């Protein structure tokens, strides 16, 4: 995948001063790193408030690759939403609108890096090369979303808001204790969380821990402007990236609808971490275009014009415009990507429908690594109980 020139190491360690501006829907470009405008124009490089320069240097192939990721991730997400509407999933947390934040940060990860997602990072998961069906067990209700975090370098989804930021911090402490920082092959950790999560004690404790132990971690906050119905103003009165300053590490705000800028900023922060320079907070300024989850009704708390304004900043349209203007891609390419997305969505759908229901007695598996006599007794009871019904299979 693409590699960016991130100028990461040149970056100063000082956090950014407060801008003093109230948190607004439209930050100045002064405190927002952007490398691709909503109209698809490239900005060569951007200097952040603290003097760090951000730019990317992708080949045409890599640009097309990012576009493909964005389209695929959106299409699979749409398929999941459709599956839920058809009763095939219990619930779905859509990433619509946040594709660039996820693809940009996901592609910025190096193979050795470890990610701790929330419940919405399907796009990051995809970029890690993980089978996109993996989280569907959780949303279909056939399992609790269990996989081996170490196998995929991608932790299980975490639903309790903020809890995973401490897990990520502990893991990053372990990386440092293992002596796995300090060089280009060092390991870095990324912890995803939302604007709402920023208010949780756990997240702030994670900031404290990671600062005190100089843990190799990037806190990646997707500020999608809402925690369910609550707008950002319920969680903070200043821009979120500025939170980091209070804990003694850098904070950067990036246009989260700009896959290039997100890539550049995340890559630089990860590289700082892997080189032993400790934590960074990245605030990806984006928007949740859909409902919080399929059970939510956003018309109750936000107005159509706001959604429309964000529509104009669409993360995919701008890449398409850029590719077209720069003649990096043509209609045939776009059609091919759409077709691939359609096919992958179809395959995903088929596989979701085939997911087997769990067996009743599996209820008793894995409560404890080596079992427990009480659980065994309850399993036995259940087996006998089920046997008492005619034709039961378990």
């Amino acid at each position, binding site marked *: 995948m693409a590699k960016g020139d991130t100028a990461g190491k040149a970056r100063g360690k000082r956090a950014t001063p407060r801008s003093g501006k109230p948190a607004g829907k439209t930050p100045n470009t002064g405190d927002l790193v952007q490398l691709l405008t909503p109209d698809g124009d490239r900005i060569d490089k951007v200097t952040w408030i603290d003097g760090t320069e951000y730019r990317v240097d992708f080949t045409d192939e890599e640009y097309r690759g990012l576009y493909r990721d964005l389209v695929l991730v959106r299409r699979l997400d749409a398929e999941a939403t459709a599956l839920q509407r058809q009763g095939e999933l*219990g*619930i779905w947390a859509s990433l619509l609108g946040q594709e660039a934040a996820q693809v940009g940060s996901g592609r910025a990860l190096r193979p050795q890096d470890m990610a701790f997602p929330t*419940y919405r990072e399907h796009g990051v998961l995809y970029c890690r090369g993980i089978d996109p069906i993996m989280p569907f*067990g*959780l*949303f*279909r*209700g*056939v*399992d*609790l*979303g269990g996989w081996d975090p170490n196998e995929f370098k991608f932790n299980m989804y975490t*639903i*309790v*808001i903020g809890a995973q930021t401490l897990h990520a911090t502990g893991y990053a402490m372990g990386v440092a204790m293992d002596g796995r920082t300090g060089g280009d092959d060092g390991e870095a950790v990324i912890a995803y969380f939302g604007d*709402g*999560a920023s*208010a*949780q*004690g*756990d997240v702030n404790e994670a900031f404290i821990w990671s600062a005190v132990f100089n843990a190799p971690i990037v806190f990646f906050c997707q500020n999608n402007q809402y*925690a*369910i*119905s*609550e707008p950002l103003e*319920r*969680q903070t009165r200043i821009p979120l990236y500025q939170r980091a300053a209070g804990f003694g590490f850098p904070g950067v705000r990036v246009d989260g609808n700009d896959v290039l800028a997100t890539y550049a900023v995340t890559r630089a922060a990860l590289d700082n971490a892997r080189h032993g320079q400790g934590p960074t907070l990245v605030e990806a300024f984006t928007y949740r275009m859909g409902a919080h989850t399929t*059970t*939510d009704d956003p018309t*109750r*708390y936000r107005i159509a014009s706001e959604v429309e304004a964000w529509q104009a900043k669409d993360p995919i349209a701008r890449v398409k415009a850029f590719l077209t203007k720069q003649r990096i891609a043509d209609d045939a390419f776009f059609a091919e990507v759409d077709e691939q997305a359609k096919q992958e969505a179809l395959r995903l759908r088929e596989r979701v429908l085939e997911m087997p*229901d*769990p067996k*009743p007695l*599996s*209820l*008793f598996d894995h*409560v404890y690594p080596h079992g427990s006599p*009480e*659980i065994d007794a*309850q399993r036995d009871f*259940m087996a006998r*109980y089920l046997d*008492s*019904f005619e034709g039961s299979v378990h």
Partner: protein
Amino acid sequence: MATETLTLGKAINRGLRRALEHDPKVVIMGEDVGKLGGVFRITDGLQKDFGENRVIDTPLAESGIIGTAVGLAIRGYRPICEIQFDGFVYPAYDQIVSQVAKMHFRSQGKVTVPIVIRIPFGGGIGAVEHHSESPEAYFAHTAGLKVVSCSNPQDAYTMIQQAVISDDPVIFFEPKRRYHEKGTVEVDAPLDEAYPLHASRVVRPGRDATLLAYGPMVRTALDAATAAEEDGRDLEVIDLRTLSPLDLAPVYESVRRTGRCVVVHEAPGNVGLGAEIAARITENCFYSLESPVLRVTGFDTPYPAARLEEDYLPNLDRVLEAVDRTFGW
């Protein structure tokens, strides 16, 4: 007496509205309780009618919700805190068990913290992890808290208002899978003549065995009793309603008649409410018991994936299976 047919969820909404009307010091606080009206719409319309100072959308942090509620209570307010789902009350656990529960005791009675903590609880709605738990034992074991659960619209309407006017901190468990069940509610009955908050109630008289349940399992117990009629068994069903303190006098009375008792709850059995109830019944009705008090509960596993919850949760058949066992003892 005006009666209306309301869902259980709507009945709570109406009860909250009356509580807000009745006392300007009552405030509602929690995540998404404002414009959204809560994820279950229990606070629907209340912010619009009472304003942002009475119905407060809070930052996303449960310890903060309860901790600031304590401060508001010291200031003279009566906060009603909504915890969005059962599984999200734990970040507030310290504030609840170490602060809310102890404030009156440690102040030698000089401070009251009349906080109501509303928790939609229990499973059966096909949700993902942390959205279907039954944490009532954690609170019932905590001295200084009172814990109740409603099972029908009338009780929901009355009990939420009683909880708010009570000077105790009350953990108010709402059976979320029954939010949509309808019933008749006397909407203008005077509160001081209502059935007491901390009292259990016989909801179906019977002679052969006693079934105990609360919250979502009352319906299950009643259904089981109906089904048992076919076997010629006449089961008494008691809705416990108050989980701390327990009100077991009617239970003892019943068990002394029936000699058999089954207690049902969704929470895991181990060190659950059922254990306490069984122990007390045994202490108080020792010579009347024909069989030990049996428990039908969630298993001692974490709450499983949605497609296993029917196997996990007590249901009519498991209740009747236990009743059978009490007769076979």
